[in-house]
Every structure is written in structure tokens, then in C-alpha cells.
């Protein structure tokens, strides 16, 4: 999985957050240590985290908690999103360093609604983004203040859980295991009984694997495998001329029917339709999944949200 390594990041290191704007094609499930606030500035995209997928539209704001796995995918519209990544250190409660917050902030969800309007968070994020373009000293301090406001607003106005993990479980270790699982699935995607082979490789029973994945990602092994199959098939549809049936076999689907059904469910289109309508990715796009966008457009969009 490459998506946890961000190359195309324009960020300042003077203040404790990474701020960037990106247009998403696909960002298969990944996680990071930072808390990530995302604002959809234009268009729409589909987000999947622990529970069911959400369609996010312009003006939606979502927070991805530290180490929470999530994936993003474009719809048929172009999109533009603002990301602010806040390191864990900002949220640590000194009285108990082992505990961490898990905030519920998702403007597309009807449950777990915060005590203030979502626009409060959106506005703070947009202000941060606008100032981040400046090189003035004063703006660095303004951004620091805005970041603190964002953290305080999260703690004061959103619903949250506080979680403490047991001493003997190394959450870093857990993340390594997760990576190993991901890599194994990718490498063995054409196999038709990946789950059993995976269990043998990773040394867990199916039940243990199920619990582990459910806890760390919210997904089942089948979800991950299907998702990886779809991603691989997309790449092949875009970049090769191979036949549908070849691709279907290469990606480990049981049959063409299964391929069609799963693909359409995941993307909304059939494999053929996808192939015909694919967007050309500029070859100098540094990170897979991110599209080029117009900086000026981004600037004027941001101002609109204020």
C-alpha cells in the first residue's frame, strides 16, 4: 500500500499541522497517526470508514481519527478537497498519556451530531488554508491560534470516545500486522482462497483475524480482499488492453458474473463503462490517486466558504 506515504504534500513545518488541497481519484483504505480533517470544497466523493459509505458533497466536513482506516473514491464529478492533518500530540491529555480521543465529526451523518454547526469547523479549516499560503510571520501565529481553536472546538463541541489500549498491546505492532496483511493480499490477489492462506501466513485463526480486522479497520477480510481486487482491476482496465475475462482471472474473481457484480457495486459502473470513461492521469502526477487541479480555482473556492 502506497497511500500512507504522502509525497505530494505542500506543508509548512512552522506550525503543528500539515495543510494541503488535493483532488481525489482514489485513495484506498489507509490510516495515519495524525487526525485528519477533510473539507470538500467542490464536487463530491465517496468515503468509507468503519461503517457504511457516505457520499460527501461540497461543504461537507469529516474528521478521520488517528489510526482509523478510511478510503476515498471519486464519483463522476470532479472534486477538490482541503486536508488538515493534526498530530496526535495536540490532543494528548497530560493526566493520562495512554488515552486518546476518538471524535465524531461527519456532516454527512445524521447521528452523533456536534453541539455547534459543522460550518464552525469548516470555517476554521478554510481560514487555516487561506493563511497557509502566506509567508508572513504573523500568519504563522494566526495559524497556530486557529489550530488550537480547532482542537478546542473538537473537544468541547463534538461527541467523542476516549480510548485506552492495554499495556501489552503495541498499537504500532498492530499497524505493522495490518500492513503485512495488506501486502499479502496484494501479492496473492489472483488466488481464490486468500483468506485461508492469509491466516496461515499471519498466524491467526479466522476468528482472530476477523476480530483483529474489525477492531482496527472496521472491515472484514472479505471487504479488504474485494476492495483490493477492484483496485487492481481498475488499474488494469485503465492501463492495459487486456480482455475483461483475463483481468477477471488475474484479479482472482470467481467468475465474470462476480467480477461485474462486485465492480458495479463498488464503483457504480460496469468494467467496460469504466474503461471507456477513464480520466487520463497526467504522467507527472506524483502520487497515485491524486489529480491535478487549478490553484487559482482552489483559492477562490476557499474564499467562497468564508
Amino acid at each position, binding site marked *: 500500500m502506497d497511500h500512507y506515504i504522502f509525497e505530494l504534500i505542500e506543508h509548512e513545518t512552522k506550525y503543528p499541522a500539515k495543510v494541503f488541497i488535493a483532488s481525489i481519484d482514489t485513495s484506498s483504505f489507509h490510516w495515519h497517526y495524525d487526525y485528519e480533517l477533510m473539507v470538500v470544497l467542490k464536487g463530491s466523493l465517496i468515503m468509507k470508514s468503519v461503517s457504511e459509505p457516505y457520499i460527501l458533497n461540497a461543504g461537507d466536513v469529516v474528521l478521520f481519527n488517528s489510526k482509523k482506516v478510511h478510503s476515498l473514491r471519486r464519483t463522476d464529478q470532479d472534486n477538490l478537497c482541503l486536508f488538515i492533518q493534526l498530530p496526535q500530540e495536540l490532543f494528548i491529555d497530560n493526566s*493520562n498519556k495512554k488515552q486518546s480521543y476518538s471524535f465524531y465529526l461527519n456532516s454527512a451523518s445524521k*447521528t*452523533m451530531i456536534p453541539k455547534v454547526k459543522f460550518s464552525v469547523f469548516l470555517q476554521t479549516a478554510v481560514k487555516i488554508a487561506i493563511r497557509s499560503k502566506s509567508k508572513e510571520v504573523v500568519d504563522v501565529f494566526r495559524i497556530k491560534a486557529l489550530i488550537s481553536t480547532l482542537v478546542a472546538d473538537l473537544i468541547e463541541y463534538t*461527541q467523542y*470516545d*476516549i480510548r485506552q*489500549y492495554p499495556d501489552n*498491546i503495541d498499537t504500532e505492532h498492530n499497524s505493522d500486522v495490518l500492513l503485512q496483511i495488506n501486502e499479502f493480499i496484494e501479492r496473492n490477489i489472483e488466488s481464490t482462497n486468500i483468506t485461508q492462506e492469509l491466516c496461515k501466513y499471519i498466524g491467526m485463526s479466522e476468528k482472530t483475524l476477523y476480530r483483529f480486522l474489525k477492531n482496527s479497520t472496521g472491515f472484514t477480510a472479505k471487504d479488504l480482499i474485494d476492495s483490493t481486487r477492484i483496485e487492481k482491476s481498475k488499474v488494469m482496465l485503465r492501463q492495459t488492453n487486456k480482455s475483461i475475462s483475463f483481468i477477471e482471472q488475474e484479479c482472482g474473481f470467481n467468475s465474470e458474473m462476480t467480477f461485474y457484480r462486485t465492480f458495479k457495486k463498488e464503483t457504480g459502473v460496469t468494467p467496460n463503462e469504466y474503461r471507456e470513461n477513464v480520466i487520463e492521469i497526467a504522467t507527472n502526477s506524483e502520487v497515485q490517486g491524486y489529480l491535478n487541479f487549478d490553484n487559482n480555482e482552489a483559492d477562490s473556492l476557499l474564499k467562497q466558504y468564508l
Partner: protein
Amino acid sequence: MKCTKKYRLTYTERAKKLLDSLNLEEKIHLMSGEIGLKEMMDGLKQGVENHYNHVPYPAGGIKDKKLPPMLFCDGPRGVVCSTGKSTCFPVTMLRGATFDTDLEVRIGRAIGKEVRAYNGNLFAGVCINLPYNPGWGRSQETYGEESFHLGKMGSALVRGVQDENVIACIKHFAFNSMEISRFKVSVNCDKRTEREVFLPHFKDCIDAGAGSVMSSYNLYKGTHCGHHDYLLNKVLKDEWGFDGFVMSDFIWGVKDTVEAANGGQDMEMCCTEYFGDKLVKAVRDGLVSEEKIDKSALRIIRTLLAFSQADDKEYKDSVIGCKEHTNLALEAAEKGITLLQNKDNVLPLNRNKIIRITVLGKLAKKEVIGDHGSSQVRPKYIVTPLQGISNLSPKAEVTFYNGEDLEHAKDLARQADAVIFVVGYDHDDEGEFVSESSSDAYTTTIGGDRTHSLGLHQDEIDLIKAVGPENKNSVAVLIGGNMIMITEWKDYVSSIIMAYYAGMEGGTAIAKILFGDVNPSGKLPFVLPYKENDLPLVNWDTTQQIYDYYHGYTKLEKEGVEPLLPYGFGLSYTKYEINDATFATEDEKVVAKCTITNTGDMDGTEVVQMYVGFKNSKVNRPIKLLRGFERVELKAGEKKEVSISCPEKKLCWFNPENESWELEKMNYEMYIGTSSDNKDLLQGKITLG
């Protein structure tokens, strides 16, 4: 205790000599507090370093006559002075639930030491007001609803505090058990109620040697208790032979110079408004005799001389909040927390099986040590329930959520091996009450009585009812100062523990009990009824209130109403059996004996209780009354003999016609067992007279 009444009286001559050397103004100077009104008002905002009583408050004192001032420190859950130092013990009500007088003596000594280390010489933390209805906002500051128990526990605290040569001040005298109306309500009751229900515990503490009494704000039969000739002169000083001095409750405790001085008030606290010059003038105008002044001043001088000269020990600053005291606070919490229900032995939680815990309820994360009134203690640290649970289950994944969204709470409960609800009250809901006008106030919290309901907040009830059934291993931890109704939701959780306000180590104690590191042994010092209106009705905002003879468990028993949980009830993780009960009289005492066996697998402690019944009485008397108790430690399988005795005097009734105590010559029922419920008692009888 060195400074007993007898010892203090040996100072009468010295005190008289000093008194004779004073002029009128100097004598009256002794009778007032020294804190400037503005200074106290300015300092009394929450969060300000100079909070209420941050240093001992002085009164009187004459340097060149070598008479020290009275140096006042408030309580009762610890010494109120300073910030980040004092030991914060569990509130008095939890300590009442321990039924452990030895422990209370030790707590008294620890507090006494800290008072000395602060250079104080008086501890005003022996609050023994009897809550007529458990909605009283300051219930946390008293031991429970039974006068006999109040007397025993209060006396123990007096002994402990005065062992360190600190004056113990008992309060608030008298009939002070309504908060919102405390400045304006006039309490009325009949003679028997006054003498048999609301005053005996004060006498017990006077007999134990208390050196000072604080009069209350409220009125009794139309007269302010700070001016009350009957209560202060006739009953307290004459009848009971009290040798110490009376001080008024602060600022609004004296409202009239002449009435207060003649009514037996010795010291106006905490600043001079009605005494001082006004009192000098009243004496000169012949409205108050100088003899009265001499009497008050003598009491003050004698008490202060006796205590201040009792030792010349130096108490180091390091004793304040020391490990020994914080351990004592933890010990008290462990002994008082009461197990009310434990279906299918869900508790204690097995650390090997319970590896995912969900904690729900905003109080879990709060520093629930009690109200923010004059009893607020500011310790160095406070362990919240969530911290306690997290600290004591390092192998578990602990998730906290405040419980607002019921669906989310249900999810978290389903995903866990156990769910713990922390619910109840905090300082915003109940506590010392501040008047609406902030210029009148000397504390900053809202508090007040529980005027709306004696049960949980509606959102907490909804939370328990929605989420409890989602997980069989469900526990409700109750936080609060007095009885909390559980009828509506008790069947939706397996286990319930009452944690009161458990002090600076409260979270640790709660967790130790949840996980079985400690076997709970607390007993309810109040009855828990099925319905709120099984208890006496009180109009919390009023100028007149009648206190009936019956309240609490005596009322339910007299009216044949079954309680949900009886007075004296408390479960444990083991089982006890009482056998071989015998009852006898000897040396003007009644004695109950029995054997008690720990028939379970876990070491534990049981509180054996003795009750006396009055069925054959010719007058209207309770069905039975608590007249003795003792904690008995038993290892698993161990058997011990218990003997509890009570002086016959304590079985008298007060005959209003000849104004005297009478012991009825009749058969009395005798009970010994583990709660006030007849099912938990072995019964017998004795004959007196």
C-alpha cells in the same frame, strides 16, 4: 484526649484571672471574628488562590495577654485551607456507611494534625445535622439519618481531632437540614421530636468532649438559632453542662446584637457586625448585662488556654497530604462504598475475562469529591472513576463515552465484555446553597437541595434503561451525597454500587471494588424506599417547616411500608451467617451477643447491628431503633463471637409532661444481625424495670 471537659475546667481559675484584667472592649473583642468582610468577599471566587478559608480565619486573641486567637479551619472532608495540599477524605456520608468509629477517630487525628500544620486550632468539620429528608443538599456533610449513629460517629471524630489538641466544633446547632431556605426557615416540632430525634447526637458529642458548637442559620420555633436562649443557654449550657463556647454560622448567623448576646451567642463569626462596638453600646445602655459578656469571654478564654497550652509540638508542613493520610482516605473509601445489588455475581469483574470495558456517563471523568461550598477541599490530585478503572485494568481496553447518543452507547456496550455506568450528582446539582445575589454569597456554586427528584437525571435513567440490557456484565456506580432512588432502572443492570463522594482516591477505591481487590463492606446509613413519597414531605423553599417524629426507616417501619433496601443494608462478595443470638441486661446496659461466620470464599468484613424494639410501649414509639453496631473482620471460613452493648439510658423516651427521660418498665424486643430488615436479624427479648 488530653483536653477533656474535666481538664478544661482546671483552667477556670487561670481564665478568670485573665478575664479580670480585661476591660469591656477587650472582652467583647474576643467575641468576634477578625476577617474583613470585603477581604472575604473578594477572595471567594472559584479558582482564585485566596478562596474561602484558604488560611485559618482568626477571631479574638489578645497578644499582650498571651491569649491566642481562635484560628478556624473548616471541614468536614478534610482541611479546607490552601490549594493542592490538604488530604481530601471521602465525605462524611461515606464514612457513615463504614459504621467504623475506630476509623473515624483515625481520620479525626489525621485532620487534627493537618489543622495544626496549618497553624489552626479549631476544626469546624463535625457536622451532625440529621437529614429529615434525603434531598437536603448538604447531606454529604453528615453521617446518616439515625441519631444514635450520628452520635457515635460524630463523637469519634471529636475524639480524634481533639487528640491533637485541636478544638472540635460541632455544627450546625440545630435543626439545620434544609439548604435553600436555610436563612429563612423556621423549623417546628413537638417536644419529643426535639429531644428524641434531633438533639441527642449533639449531646453525645458534647459528652464526648467537644470544645465548641456552631449555631445554625435557621430559626427554631420563630427564633434564630444564633440567638436561641432555649437551645443555647437552657439546653446546651445549663442542662448539658457544655463548658466550651458557641460561635455563629458565618455572617448571617447573628442578626441582632441584644437578642444574640442574651440568647447565649458567644462569638460572632467571621467578621464583626453586630457585636463589637454595637455590643459595647448595648452593655452601656443596660440592654445586655456585663455578666453575660463575662460568661462568654470566660468560655472562650478557658477553652483557648486549655487547648493552646496542652502541648508545644511542632507540626511540619509535610504532614499535610502525606502518604499516610492519603492511604487513610483510600482505606475509608474502600470501607464505605456500598454494594446494593449483584445479580448472578457479575461483580467482581474477572480481569482475565473482562478485557474490553466500556465506561459510560459524564461523571466518570469528573473529579467527584463533593460540592464546592464551604466544605470544598483542594487536594494535590484526585483520581476520577475513569482513571481508577483505567489504572487498575492495564490489560484491558477501556473506552469512555459520555452517553449522550443512546445508539452509540449501545454499540459500545455490545462491543465490550463489561459496561460500567457512572451516574448521579455533582456540585452543580446538590450542595451548599448560595443566594441568588452574588454579593450575598461566600461560595460560588449553585448547589441547593434536590428539589425536583431524588432519583437520577432523566438522561441517565434513559441511558441505563436503553443500554443496560445490551450487556449482562453491567454495573451502575452511583455518585451522590445521600439516598438515590433506583426503583425505575435497577432491573436493567446486574449490579449497583453506591460510591457517595469518595474522596481524592475515590476512583481507585471504586476500581478496586469492581475488580475484587477489595471486598465491599459498606452499609447504607439511610433507608432506600420504593417511592419518594414513602418519606416525609418537605417544602424546600419556605419559611415554615414542621419536622415530624418519624422519618427515614422509622417512618417506613411504623407505617408498615416495605423499603426497597433497608437501613443498614450492604452486600459483599462473600456470605455471612449469624447464629446463637443471646440477649441480656448487665450493669444498666443491654447486651446482644451472637456468633458470625464467613461462609464464603473471600475474606471480608461485616457490620453487625443491634436494634431494640418498643412494641409494648404505652406511648407512640418506633417499631425499633438502631442501638449498637460493630465491624467484624472475618477470613473466609472464620467464625467469631460478637458482643454489642448499649446503656439503658439510650432506650428512654422523653416525657414532655414532666420534661424528663423515662425508661419504660416492660419487655423490649432485641435484635442482632446484618441490616434493619427482620429477615437479616435474630430476635429475642429482655425485660427492664
